[in-house]
């Protein structure tokens, strides 16, 4: 088992936002957590990345507890997040954004190679490498955010609603990028409101509603479920 969340409870100012959620994934899987606005998806990812300490429950990575670690230690273990809103460094250039995302690494050569690889897979970032991150379009910013998370060479990549606010064409493009990242061997936990995209990319999925997991299963099964059709696919 690569990654496991057990009975995770997270509170904000006394309000229980996550009411004991559990999920798990094997190495090499791509899974999705779908849910409507306010369901608690971002809160779950914040807890996993160490930005918010859980009230109770466990988060395990390769069998070891990580729920009491600091964000930088979680990144070091191999979990990297593309957060909601992208969290770029807006007044730094595109290349500075990418380079500083390798902050924890000491292999100069490896960083250089990864930068080249990123420019190969995202030619638009190479074109814009000297521009400030804030001058990029929404889709380009999302590409940059993904590139930054990849600089940590993660085993597990967490993505928080990467399709939000993008044009349909751009959503397809982001979908292709996520597909390739998974194909190259990275495990992916994709959080989405766009259940259509999420369930076509993921092997398995979980649905979260007001802090509880209400459904889980293979993506194909979920797509056919009446509940999912009604609640998430608008059918």
């Amino acid at each position, binding site marked *: 088992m690569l990654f496991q969340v057990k009975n995770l409870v997270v509170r904000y100012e006394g309000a229980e936002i996550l009411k004991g959620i559990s999920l798990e994934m094997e190495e090499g899987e791509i899974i999705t957590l779908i849910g409507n606005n306010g369901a608690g998806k971002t809160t779950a990812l914040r807890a996993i990345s160490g930005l918010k300490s859980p009230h109770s429950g466990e988060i395990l990575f390769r069998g070891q507890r990580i729920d009491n670690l600091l964000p930088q230690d979680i990144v070091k273990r191999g979990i990297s997040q593309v957060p909601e809103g992208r969290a770029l460094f807006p007044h730094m250039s595109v290349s500075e954004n990418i380079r*500083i*995302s390798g902050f924890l690494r000491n292999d100069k050569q490896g960083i250089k190679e990864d930068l080249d690889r990123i420019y190969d897979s995202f030619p638009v970032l190479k074109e814009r490498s000297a521009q400030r991150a804030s001058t990029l379009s929404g889709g380009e910013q999302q590409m940059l955010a993904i590139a930054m998370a990849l600089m*940590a060479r993660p085993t597990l990549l967490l993505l928080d609603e990467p399709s939000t606010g993008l044009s349909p064409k751009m959503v397809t493009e982001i979908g292709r990028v996520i597909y390739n990242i998974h194909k190259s061997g990275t495990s992916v936990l994709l959080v989405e409101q766009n259940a259509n995209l999420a369930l076509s990319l993921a092997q398995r999925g979980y649905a979260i509603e007001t802090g509880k997991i209400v459904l889980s299963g293979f993506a194909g099964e979920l797509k056919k479920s009446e509940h999912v059709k009604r609640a998430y696919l608008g059918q």
Partner: protein
Amino acid sequence: METSLSFVLQAIANGLAMGGLYILVALGLTLILSIMGILQLAHGEIYMIGAYLVYYLTSSLGISLYIAILISMGAMGLIGLVLERGIFRPCKGDFLSVITVAIALTLILRSYAVAQFGLFERTVPKLASGSLVFFGVAVPKDRFVAMLIAAAMSVALYLFLKMTRYGQAMFACAQNPEGARLRGINPDLISPMAMMIGCALAAAGGAIAGSIWMLTPTMGTLPLVKGLIIIVIGGMGSLSGAIVAGIFLGLMDGIIPVFFGPVVTSIAPLVIVVLILLVKPQGLFGHG
């Protein structure tokens, strides 16, 4: 005619030297504010203690001025580390605590200086003796040395921030603290660095001021106020803004008193700040 040219050139030299000192204080203030999110109102006292330490090192221990300045910068840098860890980190995020603590620190450091060194004005050796002659007018050399030191330190800071991993991490923390944490940058590593650099720059500024003019326990107030004005005019967190605004304020402080009385001298900078903010609320170089 002769005398008025001499007045103007001396005023410009004085103004640029003062501008350099203001910049050294403002760069530290803006670094601390944008990375740690705190308004370090005791920063002027770091400047003052840094100057008195140079006074002690040169007058009591006979250490040469430039070595004394370096030692004082190092010592104040260490004090910055202690302040960050011991005082400011525990009240992070609590605006009122930060202000209270900073004011308490101001009172403590200032009283300490009065108790230790008295209210008499003290002097430290000159940065340089003699004058440079421009258009037949002699301008004291130490003003130019002060400008050079301020310029060299500003350039060094810029290169550090732009070229090194830790410098870039400081920018990252300032622009998006949570984003920085997600990329593995630990704010508890970066904040002490900001404080250390800020305090060292303030100590250099204080020492230079003490060498050109003199030392008093209240010498830190003016550069603190100027530093705050510079941050507002230059734009929060903008280094180039701080430098331009610093030179501008210094020149005004050098030149205006030569032509106008004390009332205009003290009001003019504030009027200009208000005018700038009316036109550009985010400051000259501020981001949106």
